[in-house]
């Protein structure tokens, strides 16, 4: 049974039509957390976040507190918010920026104060036209309200926030590519080392890059304490988390779920969440954390929604998106479409990703649409191996960034789990599901 008694940490205002306005925000306790934070020393605020064990909500799941502690001391430092949400079937940040932009802005100010950073950029996905309007409006209101600009709420701390529009490139969700986009360049992920923007980020200066949802958790953590947050969930996976549920479910949508206490089955079937599969068809497979993640089968439905729990089973919670395939869904078509996505979104820097994604996509297309050969399966696995040697999890890679080793996830999983389906495609020279 789903555990539903956790507080709503980031979705508390969504019942209100005008949740995006300053008036509603203030009426529902908005900016109280900021005032409280400003009354504390910056390191006390950071300590609360550290205690909360707030894992980054962007995809990598790196603890926010630790990321903050890595910020290299410097005369100039930046905070950058990653709102370039583009992982397929991930739509939680979209909800937060459109429906509760002040919560995000308040989180940004709190983080900036804790980090003692005076300039922050909110990089929002360019396609979020309404989200850009709403976040910019919230920033404008925050300035007028005294929560931004010089001497925030009379605290002596000053902050400018700039809302930066992206322009349509999945790869800019990768934090170093995002920084390139923010520097006005092509979104080529930066080669490592340096490994962390906290040492060398925007313009080579120390920079903290945090996800929208991560930021949106901060007001609650400051008001209620890191311990209260850490009391939710279990192990390293504390608090609640937004899960974007899509695909073959009755109620696709974004749900705030207490971590670990609930399972994938709860998320997919509980009436409060997905409400089951249309026509009560069986779940054939599901993708637990965005299309970069290896797939799971029905026997993993009872896995708890926890970062380490999922990691131990060879996949990841990633971006918090769960895609459900039922027995009417073609695994080959699904894997082909995901590969097509990676092929279109590969930045093109590294040979294995640029050429490999296109090659795999074309071979998968043949399998799905006629022209497939039995030997294509071994060929595909070997091409995948040349991008992610050994096809292990977590993956090894021959590329600069993790888009490369994300390509094999679906193809490898689909061939491993549904080899017969592939062979049926070869047999019929087309898709048996058509």
């Amino acid at each position, binding site marked *: 049974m789903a555990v539903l008694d956790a507080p709503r940490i980031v979705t508390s205002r969504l019942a209100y039509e005008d949740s995006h306005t300053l008036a509603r925000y203030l009426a529902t306790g908005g900016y109280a957390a900021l005032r409280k934070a400003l009354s504390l020393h910056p390191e006390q605020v950071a300590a609360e976040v550290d205690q909360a064990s707030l894992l980054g909500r962007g995809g990598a799941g790196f603890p926010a507190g630790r990321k903050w502690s890595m910020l290299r001391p410097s005369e100039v430092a930046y905070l950058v918010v990653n709102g370039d949400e583009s992982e397929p079937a991930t739509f939680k940040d979209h909800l937060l920026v459109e429906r509760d932009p002040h919560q995000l802005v308040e989180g940004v100010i709190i983080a900036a104060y804790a980090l003692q950073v*005076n300039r922050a950029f909110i990089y929002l996905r360019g396609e979020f036209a309404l989200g850009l309007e709403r976040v910019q409006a919230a920033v404008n209101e925050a300035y007028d309200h005294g929560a931004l600009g010089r001497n925030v709420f009379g605290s002596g701390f000053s902050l400018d926030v700039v809302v930066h529009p992206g322009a349509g490139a999945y790869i800019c969700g990768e934090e170093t590519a995002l920084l390139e986009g923010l520097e*006005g360049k092509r979104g080529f992920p930066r080669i490592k080392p340096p490994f962390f923007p906290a040492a060398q980020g925007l313009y080579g200066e120390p920079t903290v890059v945090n996800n929208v949802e991560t930021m949106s958790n901060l007001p609650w953590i400051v008001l209620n304490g890191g311990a209260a947050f850490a009391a939710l969930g279990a192990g390293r996976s504390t608090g609640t988390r937004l899960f974007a549920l899509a695909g073959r479910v009755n109620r696709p949508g974004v749900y705030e779920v207490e971590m670990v206490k609930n399972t994938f089955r709860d998320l997919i079937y509980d009436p409060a969440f997905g409400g089951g599969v249309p026509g009560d068809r069986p779940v054939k497979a599901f993708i637990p954390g965005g299309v970069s993640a290896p797939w799971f089968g029905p026997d993993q439905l009872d896995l708890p929604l926890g970062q380490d729990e999922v990691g131990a089973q060879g996949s990841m919670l990633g971006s918090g998106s769960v895609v459900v395939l039922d027995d009417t869904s073609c695994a080959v078509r699904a894997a082909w479409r995901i590969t097509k996505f990676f092929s279109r979104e590969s930045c093109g820097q590294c040979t294995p990703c640029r050429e490999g994604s296109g090659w795999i996509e074309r071979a998968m297309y043949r399998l799905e649409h006629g022209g497939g050969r039995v030997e294509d399966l071994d060929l595909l696995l070997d091409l995948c191996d040349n991008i992610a040697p050994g096809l292990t999890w977590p993956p090894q890679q021959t590329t600069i960034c993790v888009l490369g080793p994300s390509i094999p996830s679906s193809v490898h999983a689909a061939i491993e789990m549904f080899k017969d389906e592939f062979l049926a495609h070869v047999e019929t020279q087309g898709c048996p599901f058509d």
Partner: protein
Amino acid sequence: MSHLRVDLRQRAEELVALYPRPRSAMLPLLHLVQEQDGYVSPEGIDEVAELTGTTPADVRGTASFYDMFHLEPVGRYVVGVCTNIACLLAGGEELLAHAARHLDCAVGSTTDDGLFTLEETECLADCGHAPCVTVNHRYVRTTTAEAFDAMIDEVRSGRRDHEIPDHGTLVRVRRNGGLRVPDEVIAAERAAAKAARARRLEEAG
């Protein structure tokens, strides 16, 4: 001579001033050019190069990296239909095929009247309303063929113009003023904070 209209040129200069380095304004400036010209025009590229201290080849190369920037003219309304995984499982391919038939225009091209350009998009992060359809980056949430046709009729007749402006993501995004915290204030605050932290550490022994 500025290619951008006077008001847009002013906005462009304000955008440049928001960033520590002018080049950072590249993407917003390209959005502005698209807002004026309907696409990223060669004249606009030259002006962005001048504003950002780069070259036309650099600006064009940068713009071409990002899907939202069109280097060739497009229709007044760019209709996007998503076929990525969530939408695929909800009939996105079928809706896209329907859209092509209904608009009588191949995917990736523009209707003869220059009104609509049809694009197959990647995930637009609205999977709760799959298959996802956008017009000029506004989510119209028409998940069925019938709803799609009705929406197109409304757009064609101009009845949706209040919610779907012509090109330009930033048309309705207006920053209220420039930066408020000058560099010297930042430097002073950082010095004071550093001193305060040192004091606290000392007091804490």
